[in-house]
């Protein structure tokens, strides 16, 4: 007898089995348990029942299979219909998320919960601050497991917008992560988002790929210095090199303003062997030289990239050479 079949709480419900055509159900006990629970879920959904026992049932199903989005959606509507405690639910969701790193349904569920909570406390700054702190603390826990988890980072951007966290604390969080792993491209990308979408000084609606005249010079300087320091730490890390180009574009500054800096990684003597510490620096200089009309130097750099330092992309570097002319 199944868990629900023998439980008086569920006496009034006739489960609806999955109609998957032919094929007998399962030899494995665990599968029986799952199939039975799903049968009861279909029945309560058909009857539009929103009750505490539905919360128990969905919790049980999620513990067996957290990837079934219908279960999450029905749980959310039940929670809201019952006016259940959101903080209690969040605490439970935290554990499920920690156990299911790749799952994204959880994050959508969390958004529904926070949206709801936010509406109830939007006029209470102290409550909002404490909500922001607990969300950040939980994400830090998630990042301890996987600091590049795409779902968590997307959720983080949503939280930053929702709770207006474009502040020093957010930048410090990113720096902590980058100190642990300077190659964490997700953290670099998030930094760009936080710095260049800050409503306090950015042009509203300015795209990530375009010049924004409103960005203060000292912010641009700070970001350039930060990325420079990271390239010295790991010259072959492409993230800060991409970041530098992004910052220059945002600030409307020329690539050539960093020619000296990039030159630190590249020594090409007239005679003898060159010394290249970063193919990204070489690529950067090739662009600088091409912009300045120094085509011969640019061509030499691109040839080195295609023939020696980045051979797998030879066709790309060859194309860059032809576009010099």
């Amino acid at each position, binding site marked *: 007898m199944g868990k629900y079949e023998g439980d008086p709480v569920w006496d009034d419900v006739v489960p609806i089995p999955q109609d998957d055509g032919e094929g007998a159900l*399962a030899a494995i006990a665990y599968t029986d348990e799952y199939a039975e629970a799903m049968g009861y879920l279909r029945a309560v959904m058909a009857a539009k029942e929103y009750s505490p026992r539905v919360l128990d049932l969905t919790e049980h199903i999620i513990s067996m299979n957290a*990837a*079934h989005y219908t279960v999450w959606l029905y749980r959310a509507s039940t929670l809201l219909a019952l006016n259940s405690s959101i903080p209690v639910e969040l605490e439970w969701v935290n554990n499920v998320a920690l156990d299911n790193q790749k799952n994204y349904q959880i994050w959508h569920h969390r958004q529904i919960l926070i949206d709801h909570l936010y509406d109830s406390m939007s006029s209470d700054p102290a409550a909002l601050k404490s909500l922001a702190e607990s969300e950040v603390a939980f994400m830090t826990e998630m990042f301890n497991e996987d600091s590049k988890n795409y779902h968590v980072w997307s959720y983080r951007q949503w939280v930053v917008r929702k709770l207006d966290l474009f502040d020093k604390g957010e930048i410090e969080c990113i720096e902590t992560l980058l100190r642990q792993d300077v190659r964490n491209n997700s953290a670099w990308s998030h930094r760009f988002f936080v710095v260049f979408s800050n409503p306090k000084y950015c042009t509203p609606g300015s795209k990530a790929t375009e010049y924004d005249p409103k960005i203060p010079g000292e912010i641009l300087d700070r970001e350039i210095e930060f990325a420079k320091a990271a390239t010295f730490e790991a010259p072959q890390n492409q993230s800060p090199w991409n970041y530098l180009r992004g910052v220059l574009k945002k600030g409307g500054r020329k690539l050539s303003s960093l020619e000296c800096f990039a030159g630190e990684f590249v020594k090409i003597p007239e005679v003898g062997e060159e010394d290249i510490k970063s193919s990204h620096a070489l690529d950067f200089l090739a662009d600088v030289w091409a912009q300045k009309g120094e085509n011969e130097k640019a061509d030499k750099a691109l040839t080195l990239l295609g023939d020696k330092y980045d051979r797998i992309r030879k066709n790309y570097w060859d194309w860059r050479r032809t576009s010099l002319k």
Partner: protein
Amino acid sequence: MALVSGPGRAGALPDELQLAVEAHVKYIQSLDTRRDELEYWLTEHLRLNGLYWGVTALHLLNRPDALPRTETIDFVLSCQAENGGFGAAPGHDAHLLSTVSGIQILAMVDGYEELEKRGKVVAFEGKEYKGKEVVGRYLSGLQNKETGTFAGDEWGEEDTRFLYAGLNGLNLLGLLDLVNVDLAVDYIVSCANFDGGYGVSPGAESHSGQIFTCLAALSIAKRIDTVDKDKLGQWLSERQVEQGGLNGRPEKLEDVCYSWWVASSMTMIGRLHWIDGKKLTEFILRCQDPVGGGFADRPGDMVDVFHTCFGVAGLSLLEFEGLEEVDAV
């Protein structure tokens, strides 16, 4: 079609790399017979998507008849929900992604006529519709009229995957004029990042899978002109690692499915020749189980139908001999 992984593992290839066509066909055919396995039931919410991946792989392998057409159509139609969309399995609520999988399968097996005959009749704004029109109206109802993007279901979870899926489904139905395409294009343009890539929403990190969905949606909308092709092409080409495979983001491991997401993206902007096609082909072939059939994410791992579909599709893009040519979009 089940999504159960295994039983085979990728690897153990002879010196000369070959594509084990027959083994892959048998592997896909066998998937739906594994109902005594737990994973079959745990992946029920992806059944229709799984069928799509299997049917696609078989078509590319030049074996479209390897799964019975009538049963395939019957199964797809049995997944249609009362609101006109398709659920992942019979009795499931409709979802954008399973609806688009349903459309894609019907399009591949030439099943639109059956949809017209046997599909649900549904009323939208007081007027009754049938066949393709019903599915098209279900999809267009999911577009956010202010931002242009699409929600996955009535709960409103939005991202660029859904936007692409929505446009793709409507385009296959020939009903693109039911939605505001210009607004959808504006949304994608706002997802472009400083490094040339695109993320799941404005400001989100560039990711090869999301780049595919954005470029494919722009291709359908005939607005690929909005893309900085050289900058994006460079970022995409940097996804190739020394072993020949492609990764989804900087400093991440390579995976066969990115052979499709990255290579098709590069094809859509005319830059596929910027990566080393020979090395990529060899990497994909090392990910197959030459005896039991199927592809894994990388050599030595468990095979599954998702990676089988995208491994074969990647090879097809690279014009591997004996495969049907795939459309990058």
